[in-house]
Structure formats: structure tokens, C-alpha cells
């Protein structure tokens, strides 16, 4: 055996991402050293009172995962141990570790590194106008979370009484450029505040937001419920928080959207603090030569979402950008896959059966490549005539990369690898479990073909809804986002660029009934298109009517860029949505500029509707495998946060849009995670 085989993979950080990565690697046969700077495993997730995704506590599940990690023979855990730097070449990296309390450091050689050191909460003391640390009843969302988790009930600090009124103040230490540069959206704090508000039903609750971002699964439903219970969402930012009478409670002034001066007096104000890299970890990344992105988190590429700028070093969890816990799990598995591929010198014991990957879109391709990279044989089945998925399903450009090109490259790589058998024009029509795994029947142009597979990854994608709204289907100028993207592709010249384009967001999503969820990608997609339009024709009039601009994490950048380019933004209340009609030959959109208090009208050449991603053709495949689906009909994982790509039948996994709407980089991460989970499953079985 090569000496390098014996080098462990180093996983730094024992939060959800690190635990998942470490356990997956160990089960797959890899030696792992997990270091945790603190004294216990679980990281931030161990402190959560409940998950917004499920409404249920999560501590027991995190503890279970931590126990499995601690018990695994191929896994060594060291506490009080910090990663200080990584240098060297892949396969033989040098990591410097520091032990808490001891001044000394130690150098070890490792085969690959997974950085999962997470983030730290923002300390709001520097924002004098929020009076944190001065007014006793101004607290952070973290302390409310701790109180909720401790079961003691939430009380205000000044007198230990349960608050009868609470103000949640969003975006504290996120989406800001002064006094510190913290431009990214912290992605979970809206969900957290909504969940916390729901947990305080006896109090009068007001949430002060810039945008209420409901992209974390379960948030919009929780919001609907909280609003039905009396939660008020106000688009306003309080300025100077002061103590109420006798130093108890909090009072402040704010100006509402209409410009009216308002006062609020509450028992307690909760600052929804954002997250960012700790100074120590910034230094660690700096010493390791790992590049950061513009948002201040580890930079990654949308098509290699867990690879850092240093070969052999991967990233998972919030260190790579703010995100919910489910993403930490996904990225943990994805990073495990990348690390496994990076350290592999000889193929693992050959699994006799291939893994079936259903769907040749971006997720299916990434999954196949990931599996093949670890020596696993793959059968890739695509229903249409060619790989690459429906080109219309992707924005033209995502995070600065041309989508079509990147997907085409993946398709080419898939076709050139000997370990991957590609079958196009083929559809699975039957599946059955056997003692060895699964068998299935494929309908192909050449007739029915029987296959056997050890595990399967469902990467079936989804489609766009086509609601009968805003003249969609009745006027050729009205298009869905993907129709518009597609139209732009065939009309790319600056001269083709329409003079006036209007986007209407949340068309058929975030409803009180039916499709309740936020469709997650449509805001970023609209902004990508808007930015592209403004760049190709600066004189174009581009306007977006929106409820909340939902650009979580580092995609906040897009929103900022769009504003800077002169895209106009008009918030609308769902009760008073913009009106679309034909005025003579013109298509007219009439809405309100709430901030200026006047109605506005545009006569667009194109009206682009943000319709949600909805399941298309999933029911059939789900039925073949007897899989449960969620309310709207997406595939339901075993656990949305802890096992987000595992399906509740042995050996079955899923990735991408068939699990729900998400941006491309998350689909690719899920694809890699599903590949890793399939490898783990097969290794655990053999």
C-alpha cells in the first residue's frame, strides 16, 4: 500500500457539515481526523430550539450523529484543537494545528482537508443606534434561541418576565457596508425570526424587515401561520432604540413605507444578528492561501461548489457562505466525495453493480461525474435525446459562469468516461428491490431493456408552472422567466434588447393556500436577467415589481448590482398586485411606487413573470419506487436537514430540482452529496 493511503483526511470543525463529511468518509473506508476547536460536537445546530423546516427540535438528531462519529473506528476526534493553516500539494498537505490552552502548535501531514469551521455571530455592540449592551431588553436572536432551547421560556432581561410584546429587527450585521463591510445576506435570520415569533404566541409581535426572505423551506408556511396569529411584518428600520420607563422595555421611532412617523414600545427587541467569518478563521484562510469571495466567505465555483482555490482543500457549511443547516449537510457529503476522489490512488473494491442515475441535467451529470471520480460505475439514463437537460431550465449566466457552456462541458466529460454508460431516449418503466439491490426496466427506442443497479440517484429536475395570470398565454409579450431566457438566447444582440422590460415576482408562489413556498430562485434569476439587459442596453427601462427581493447569501450582490445599474424596484403588497392590461396596442403594467406614494405605469415590450418551479412528471417515477412526495409533489427526503438527499427506500437518493426549487450551485452540491451517500450506502452494505 502506498504511504499516502494511510494519511488521514482532516476535517476541521465539528458542526453539522464537519460531522456529516467525517462520518461519510469513515464509512466509505477513509481514515479521518476530525478536529473541533470547542469542547463538544454539533456546532451551531446543537443550540437550535427547533428547525423551521420541520417545526421540531433537532438536538437529539444532532447528538445521534455526533455519537456515530465518536464511535466510528476509522475516525479520530480531537477537541480543543484549531486548524491554523494548510499548505502543500494535494495528496500530501501540511496542516498546522493549535491546541487550546497550550501555546504550542503541531504540524501533521494529511491527504486532504475539509474546512467546516462555520461562522461566528455578529456582535451588534458597534451599532450604537441599536443600543445593544446599553438598553437591557435589547437582545440578540441567539439569546432568544438559547432560551427557547432551554425550555425555560423566553423572558426579558430587565425583570425576568415573559415579554408581552416583541419587535424583531432584521438584517443586523448583514446586508451592510458600514461601519463594517458585511455585504452578504445571512440567509437564515428571517426564517429564525419567523420561527421565534411563532414560538411566542402570547406576545404582540412585529417584525421589522428590509425584505422578508422566505426561501428556507417551511418559512413561508410559518409566516402565514404567524400572520394569522397576529404577527405584523413592517418594512421599516428602527433607528434609535431607547429604554422604556424605569429602564424596562424598548422604545423607538421608525418611518413606515408611506413616510409616516411611527413609534413603537415593546417589552423586548430582538436583533436578528447575521454571521461572518471569525477573525481567527480569516487568518487561518489567509495563511492557507484560500481565496475569499466578494461577500467575505470562502470562494467557490457554482459547478464545483465545495472546491476552494487550494487543490485538495474543500469547504462545507457556512464557512463557504451563509445557508441553512440542510445545506451544511449537503455540502458535508459533497466535500467528502471530493476529498475521497482527491485521495484515491487505487480503485476501491469494485461494487459489482452500477449506480443508476436518472436524469441527465446539471445534477445528473455532476452526480455521474462524482461517482465515476471515485471509481464507481454509473448508468446514466436520460429521457430526452441528449444530455444537458432542458436548456431552458437554467439561467443564461449563474454566478458569473455561462451555464450552457458549463453544462455542455460536463456532458462531454460524462460521455468520455469509460465507467459511465449513457442511455438517452430511455425511460424507467419498472423497478423492483432484490437482495443485491434493484432491477429495473427501461423503455428505449430499441425496445425494453432490463438493468440491475446497486443504488439510484433521482435527478429528475422539474418544470415551470404556467398560471393563468397577467395575460400569460394571452399576449405573446408576456413570458415566464425561462421563456424569456430562451427568447434572449435567440435574440442576443444589443439591438434585439427590448427597450422596456418589466418583471413581476412571486406569481403563483408564496400563496396562503396551494403553492405556499417561496420558489427560491426566481428573484436571483430575474436579477441576472435584469443585469444582463442593462449591461447590453444601458438605456433600457427595466423594472421589477416584487414582494421581497430574495437573494440570500452572497447572491445579495446581484441585487446591489441591479440597483446600481438603474433597475427600478417597486415593492407590492399581495393584496394590491400590479395590474396588467392592454391599452390599445400597448401592454401596460400599472403599479404603485409605495415609497413615493404615487402610481406608476410602464408599457413593456416584454413582461416576465416569476412563476414557481413545480414538479413535472415526478409522480410517475415516485410511484415506481413507492416514494412519498411533499405537498406540492416534490420528492420527500428522509429528513430535510440531516439527510436531505436520502430517500426513504434503501439505496435511493435524489438531487436537484426534483427535491424542490434551488439555485444551480445547490443542485450541483446535492448531486455530489447524493453520489457520496450512494457510495456510503454501498460501502456500508459490503
Amino acid at each position: 500500500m502506498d504511504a499516502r493511503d494511510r494519511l488521514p483526511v482532516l476535517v476541521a470543525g465539528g458542526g453539522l457539515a464537519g460531522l456529516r463529511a467525517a462520518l461519510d468518509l469513515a464509512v466509505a473506508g477513509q481514515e479521518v481526523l476530525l478536529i473541533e476547536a470547542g469542547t463538544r460536537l454539533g456546532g451551531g445546530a446543537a443550540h437550535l430550539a427547533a428547525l423551521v423546516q420541520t417545526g421540531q427540535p433537532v438536538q437529539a438528531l444532532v447528538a445521534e450523529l455526533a455519537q456515530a462519529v465518536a464511535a466510528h473506528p476509522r475516525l479520530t476526534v480531537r477537541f480543543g484543537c484549531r486548524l491554523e493553516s494548510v499548505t502543500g500539494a494535494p495528496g500530501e498537505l501540511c496542516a498546522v494545528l493549535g491546541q487550546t490552552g497550550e501555546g504550542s502548535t503541531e504540524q501533521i501531514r494529511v491527504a486532504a482537508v475539509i474546512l467546516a469551521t462555520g461562522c461566528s455571530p455578529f456582535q451588534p455592540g458597534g451599532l450604537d443606534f441599536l443600543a445593544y449592551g446599553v438598553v437591557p431588553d435589547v437582545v440578540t436572536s441567539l439569546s432568544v434561541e438559547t432560551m427557547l432551547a432551554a425550555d425555560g421560556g423566553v423572558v426579558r432581561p430587565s425583570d425576568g418576565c415573559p415579554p408581552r410584546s416583541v419587535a424583531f429587527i432584521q438584517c443586523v450585521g448583514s446586508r451592510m457596508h458600514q461601519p463594517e463591510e458585511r455585504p452578504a445576506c445571512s440567509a437564515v435570520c428571517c426564517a429564525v425570526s419567523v420561527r421565534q415569533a411563532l414560538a411566542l404566541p402570547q406576545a404582540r409581535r412585529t417584525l421589522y424587515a428590509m425584505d422578508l426572505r422566505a426561501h428556507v423551506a417551511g418559512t413561508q408556511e410559518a409566516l402565514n401561520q404567524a400572520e394569522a396569529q397576529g404577527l405584523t411584518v413592517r418594512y421599516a428600520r428602527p433607528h434609535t432604540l431607547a429604554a422604556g420607563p424605569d429602564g424596562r422595555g424598548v422604545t423607538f421611532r421608525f418611518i413606515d413605507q408611506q413616510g409616516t412617523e411611527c413609534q413603537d414600545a415593546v417589552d423586548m427587541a430582538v436583533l436578528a444578528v447575521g454571521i461572518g467569518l471569525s477573525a481567527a478563521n480569516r487568518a487561518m484562510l489567509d495563511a492557507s492561501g484560500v481565496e475569499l469571495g466578494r461577500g467575505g466567505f470562502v470562494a467557490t465555483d457554482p459547478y464545483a461548489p465545495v472546491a476552494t482555490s487550494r487543490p485538495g482543500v474543500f469547504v462545507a457549511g457556512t464557512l463557504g457562505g451563509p445557508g441553512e443547516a440542510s445545506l451544511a449537510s449537503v455540502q458535508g457529503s459533497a466535500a467528502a466525495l471530493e476529498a475521497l476522489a482527491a485521495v484515491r490512488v487505487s480503485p476501491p473494491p469494485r461494487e459489482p453493480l452500477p449506480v443508476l442515475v436518472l436524469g441527465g441535467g446539471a445534477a445528473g451529470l455532476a452526480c455521474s461525474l462524482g461517482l465515476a471520480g471515485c471509481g464507481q460505475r454509473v448508468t446514466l439514463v436520460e429521457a430526452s435525446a441528449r444530455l444537458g437537460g432542458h436548456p431552458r431550465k437554467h439561467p443564461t449566466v449563474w454566478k458569473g459562469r455561462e451555464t450552457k457552456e458549463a453544462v455542455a462541458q460536463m456532458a462531454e466529460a460524462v460521455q468520455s468516461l469509460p465507467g459511465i454508460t449513457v442511455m438517452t431516449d430511455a425511460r424507467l418503466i419498472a423497478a423492483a428491490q432484490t437482495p443485491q439491490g434493484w432491477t429495473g426496466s427501461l423503455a428505449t427506442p430499441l425496445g425494453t431493456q432490463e438493468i440491475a443497479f446497486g443504488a439510484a440517484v433521482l435527478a429528475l429536475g422539474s418544470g415551470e408552472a404556467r398560471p393563468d395570470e397577467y395575460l400569460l398565454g394571452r399576449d405573446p409579450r408576456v413570458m415566464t422567466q425561462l421563456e424569456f431566457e430562451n427568447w434572449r438566447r435567440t435574440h442576443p444582440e444589443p439591438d434585439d434588447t427590448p427597450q422596456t422590460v418589466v418583471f413581476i415576482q412571486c406569481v403563483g408562489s408564496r400563496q396562503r393556500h396551494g403553492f405556499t413556498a417561496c420558489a427560491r430562485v426566481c428573484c436571483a434569476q430575474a436579477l441576472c436577467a435584469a443585469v444582463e439587459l442593462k449591461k447590453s442596453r444601458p438605456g433600457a427601462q427595466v423594472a421589477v415589481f416584487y414582494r421581497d427581493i430574495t437573494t440570500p447569501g452572497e447572491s445579495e450582490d446581484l441585487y446591489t448590482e441591479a440597483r446600481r445599474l438603474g433597475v427600478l424596484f417597486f415593492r407590492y403588497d399581495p393584496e394590491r398586485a400590479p395590474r396588467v392590461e392592454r391599452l390599445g396596442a400597448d401592454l401596460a403594467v400599472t403599479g404603485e411606487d409605495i415609497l413615493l406614494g404615487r402610481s406608476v405605469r410602464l408599457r413593456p415590450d416584454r413582461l416576465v413573470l416569476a412563476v414557481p418551479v413545480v414538479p413535472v412528471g415526478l409522480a410517475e417515477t415516485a410511484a415506481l419506487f413507492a416514494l412519498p412526495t411533499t405537498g406540492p409533489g416534490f420528492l420527500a427526503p428522509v429528513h430535510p436537514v440531516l439527510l436531505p438527499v436520502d430517500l426513504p427506500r434503501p439505496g435511493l437518493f435524489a438531487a436537484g430540482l426534483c427535491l424542490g426549487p434551488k439555485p444551480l450551485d445547490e443542485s450541483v452540491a446535492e448531486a455530489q452529496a447524493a453520489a457520496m451517500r450512494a457510495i456510503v450506502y454501498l460501502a456500508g452494505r459490503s
Partner: protein
Amino acid sequence: MEPLELAVASPELQDRLQALDVRSCLGCGACASGCPIPGTPGMEGFDPRVAVRLLAMGREAEAAASPFPWVCTSCGRCSHVCPMGIDLTAVFSLLRGLVPRANVPGTLEKGVASVLETGNTLAIPLEDFLDTLSDIGGELAEEECPGFYVPVDKQGADLLVFLNSKEVFGDFDDLKWWWRIFYNARENWTVPSRNWEAEDWGLFTGNPDVSLVLARRKLDLMRSLGAARLLIPDCGGGSYGCRMGLKTCALQDPSRQVDAVYFYDYLLERIASGRIRLDPTRNAGRTYVWHDACKHGRELERHFGKGYYDEPRAILAACVGQENVVAMDPDRANNYCCGAGGGNWPMPFEKESAAHGRFKVAQLEACRADVVVVGCANCRDQLQKRLPRFYPGRCRYEVKYLWQLVAETMIATPWSQTEIEAAQERSRLQQRHFQAELDGGF
């Protein structure tokens, strides 16, 4: 109302607005929540968010035609919290500059024309100026500072001092506080005979070219008089404009860098070195509070990296004893404006300016200080003269300048007969010199 047709894209912004990044505005309203304008009668529909939105949409004419740019006190409580870090006071000062000069309200534009032409906003002629200095200086010499006179155009002084035209015009007694300090500290100081005014009305009218002219004049005087240091004046707009101008001049021509000392640092220096000795027992029995002028604190910090919060408090504590100092809430960088910033003492928006002051009045009531100590002439007038008229019975405080307090607390260090005689001789020579100049049909 008919909907506003947004047929064409907003035009490209003019370079300076673009550079100030107004289009990055999120519309979050944090600025408005900290601004005194919403809730001020007559200002319905206007706040900084609205103004920025109009500018970002290229509708600056609408914003410039409203009273907003003038009623805005440039206090900077808006920019203080703007998540995008937009320098809103710079934006609104630019907005003032977009107003046709004929529409500049009140006496501001006249003042600017006058300062450019005559060297001071009130067009006080040289003869009157010298007479005032000599009369008021003479009074002071008689009352308590034998040998005192105001050195004018003295070559090689350690400190070049500028004056507030309000004081030269009528508030004569206010001139004496600084003079007593200079006398007792035995300062080698001087004032210029021309362009002696501290204020910068270019700042008030949103005209950076004027500010630059005024700063250049100060620099030229430093050079021609061979003075060692320039005392950065006390007047809010003046000190701030002076710094802005000095910074721009130095940027344009590094050789024009001059040694300047902010008056707070000057006072602290002199107290530390013992040239000013204080007797805090004189002020016992009353409580004092420091009012952070926007342009000495928050705005200075934003534009020059350091706000003067601690220095004035140290001087105040030295004068009255820390145990007699109380605090306003909020204060320092988040302090409320007195309501007269940005030229709103002389401007014809009295009601609005007084309404802005509602926050200050409430703050002062809550802190129950007997004496409010200030570092700016506009704050002083607003607190002492305007707010009590608009809030009868609620302004139970006295207002003092910080240097007034220093002068009142200072232990006199009498001059020797020789010193007195030498000064009297210099005063006579100076008078003769200017008499000749004036007779010469100057």
C-alpha cells in the same frame, strides 16, 4: 392622480451623484427613521429616502424644487445608519447645489456673494471691523485684562484665529471669552484684517467652489502672515468647511498643507501644560451636559476619520468636575441635532428648524442638566434663543460655550507691568499702521 409614465430609463446620473452611489439605495428607510423631517409640519411626503429615490430615478429637479434640501440640517443621522454607507449629507449638499442660485432661500446666497466680494458674509467694512476689535478689546483691557488688545495681521504669530461674523456684528460680548483665554495663556496670536471670517456659507449653499475659495484664503493668510498654526474655528459649519477646504487644497497641492489645530485640542494642550489653570469649585452645585455638535462629532468622524467626542468631555470635566457632568441619551455619534445645522439658524425655515429641535428639547428635559455646554455658535443660538420660544416652559437650561466655561473657570494669571506696557506699545503701533492704511484711501 394619473399614473406616472416611466417611459424611458432614468438618465445617466451626473458624475458626482454616480460617485456618491445613490442608486445603491435599498429603500430600507433607516435614514428616514433617524431624521427629524418626517413629522415636521409642512414637510409631509419628504424624507431622505424619498429624496434619494428621486435622485436615483433622475428626478432631481423635483427634489431640488422642494424645501427638503434646505430644511435638511446636514446632521448626518441618516448616513450614520445607512446600510449601503451612502454619504447622504454629501448627497444633499450636492442637491442644494442643484437648486438654481436665484432660488436659494433667505440671505444665504447674498451672504455668499458678500463673502466673496468683501471677505465676510455681513459685508462689515475694514474700518468698522477694526473699530469693533479696538472698542471691545479696550473694554476687556479695562474690565479685567490690562494690556489686552487684538493683534491684527501680526507677523509670525503662533496661532492664526478667525472670527464669527455674528459676534463681530453684534454679539460683542461673545468675542471676549476666547480673548480672555488668549490673554491668560499669554498666547502669541493674531487675527487677519481681511477675510477674517470663520464661517463657510459655501457649505450651507451647497457650493464647494465657494468653500474652496474660503479655504484658500485661509491658507494664503497663513503664508503671508507667517503664522505657525491655524486655529480651526469653533463654528460648526466653519470648522467643518475649513477642514473640507484644507483637505481639498492639500490634495490639489501638497505644498499647501498647513499646520492646524482644532480648538478642542488647543484648549486641552493649554490646560495640560498649565498655561490655563482651572478652578472647578466655581461651577459646583449645578449639572452640566455636553451637546455633541453634528459637525464636530458624527460628520467629522465620517469624513475625517475622527470625531471629537472625548476631548470636549475632558475639557468639561476639567471645568466642572466629573461628578457634575450628566449625559444625554443618545449622544456622541448618535446624538440628535439641535435643529439648526446646515445653515438653519440664518435660514427662513424657523418653524421647521424648531420642529427638528423637538428631539433635543425632549432629550435635555430627560437629562435634567442645568447647563448645556456647546461648541458651535449655531447650536448655541438655537438652544438659547429659538427653542425656548417654541417650547415655552420646557427649556429650563442655560447654554454656555465650552470656551466660555473655560474662561469663567480660569484662574487669572495677571500680567506684569512690563508686559502690560509692552503690549500697549504694540497696540499703539498697530493702530497707527491701520490708521495710515485707512487714511490712504484703502
